């Protein structure tokens, strides 16, 4: 990128950042962790606008009426994971999101990658979009026309970089507080500790007082170019009371059937489909165990 890049700006206010992006149009990009911008080196990008001085790295427990987590787009994956284990516990989120953050590349890479950058520049291997879609997060974007909030279904329906207008900045990610009796898990299969995933799955379930599944959400990553949700397989779990291994195996098979899967040099489509079957089953098993614990803990 060294040769092509003509300027790197470090604005100290949001209006200034938006103005810089507007002024340079398609030649400019927001700079977050810089990992994709550095490795991707596009000759079309001549101007970078660093979002690092805008206070967007904050992590907050949302206040009523919007409880849950307010995640600044510039928070790094490692700071998110640390926060979720400490102060962020108050946001009531399940383990799912932290597990996804800790799945990204290597630990050192997690010090670079931002939540916003990971979500805007979605690749086949991206981890946080899978988790945040499963958690039905909302995405706040700011541009010249003001601020708007985009639901996960819309944000990830196509590539998020097309959902955002040019000059629009993703500022916050809002994760709703899961209801009582919720449990979640994120699982990823890789060839080694730091390679891109072959398949990943996020599962979130909510158990009612009698142990029956009130709601279930499933999302997949790494099995094709973009993440996806599996509404049909997830719906098949709803209403079941204390689902056991046989029921979960059936949901795994339904997930493998529903998933859109492509082949690449890492794995063939058939193998990936089989991975989907097993990791969905495993992620659900873990999520259900956690939900059951949350139920019991809450009742005590």
């Amino acid at each position: 990128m060294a040769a092509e890049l003509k300027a790197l700006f470090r604005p100290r206010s949001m209006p200034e950042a938006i103005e810089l992006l507007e002024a340079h149009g398609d030649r400019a990009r927001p700079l977050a962790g810089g990992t994709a911008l550095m490795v991707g080196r596009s000759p079309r990008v001549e101007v970078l606008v660093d979002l690092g001085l805008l206070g967007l790295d904050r992590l907050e427990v949302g206040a009523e009426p919007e409880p849950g987590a307010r995640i600044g787009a510039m928070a790094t994956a490692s700071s998110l994971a640390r926060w979720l284990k400490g102060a962020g516990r108050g946001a009531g989120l399940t383990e799912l999101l932290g597990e996804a953050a800790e799945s990204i590349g290597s630990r050192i890479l997690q010090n670079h990658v931002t939540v916003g950058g990971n979500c805007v520049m979605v690749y086949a291997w991206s981890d946080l979009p899978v988790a945040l879609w499963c958690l039905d997060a909302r995405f706040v974007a700011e541009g010249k026309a003001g601020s708007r909030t985009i639901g996960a279904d819309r944000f990830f329906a196509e590539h998020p970089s097309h959902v955002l207008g040019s000059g629009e900045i993703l500022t916050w990610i809002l994760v709703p507080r899961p209801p009582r009796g919720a449990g979640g898990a994120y699982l990823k299969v890789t060839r080694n500790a730091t390679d891109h995933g072959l398949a990943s799955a996020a599962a979130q379930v909510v158990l009612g007082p009698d142990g029956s599944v009130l709601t279930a959400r499933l999302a997949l990553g790494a099995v094709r170019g973009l993440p996806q949700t599996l509404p049909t397989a997830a719906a098949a779990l709803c209403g079941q009371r204390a689902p056991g291994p046989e029921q979960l195996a059936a949901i795994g098979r339904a997930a493998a059937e529903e998933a859109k899967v492509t082949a690449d040099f890492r794995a063939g489509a058939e193998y990936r489909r089989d991975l989907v079957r097993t990791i969905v089953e495993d992620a659900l098993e873990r999520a259900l165990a956690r939900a059951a614990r949350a139920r019991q803990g809450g009742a005590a």
Partner: protein
Amino acid sequence: MRIALTINSELRELEVAPGETLLDALRGAGYTGVKRGCEAGTCGSCVVLLDGTPSFSCLLFAAACEGRKVTTIEALGAPNRPHVIMSAFAEEAGVQCGYCVPGMVLTTHALLEQNASPSEEEVRGALDGHLCRCTGYVKQVRAILKAAERLAEERAAGKESSR
């Protein structure tokens, strides 16, 4: 463009191109302990500490590091006055060609600041961003556990003598 940042506790001003990596800027300024490997965030040879946190200098725009504190291997020690971690690496044969070692020593330093007595598993986890083509890691893991022990002994001895 001109940027000011702290390198190894010294305030420095550097002239950098907008697209220049921190890796290039540091090597250009004489900090050649920072090694160039993959330049894609996959090998760890370029690791420095950015405000104390292990970071790939090949993935950082130097211009965006204005005002930050950078620590390179030069700050920790030198062959004639090695840091405890460096000595442990040498003694345990955790150094062969040595190319991966500056980064690993810095990551180790950051790990031990946070966790004075890591388990073997924690050490292996902390090193997951570093590739070594020579040692097979076993000896480096041993070196890090030894360094942790020594530093703990030093701290204990320091407490004794200050009593």
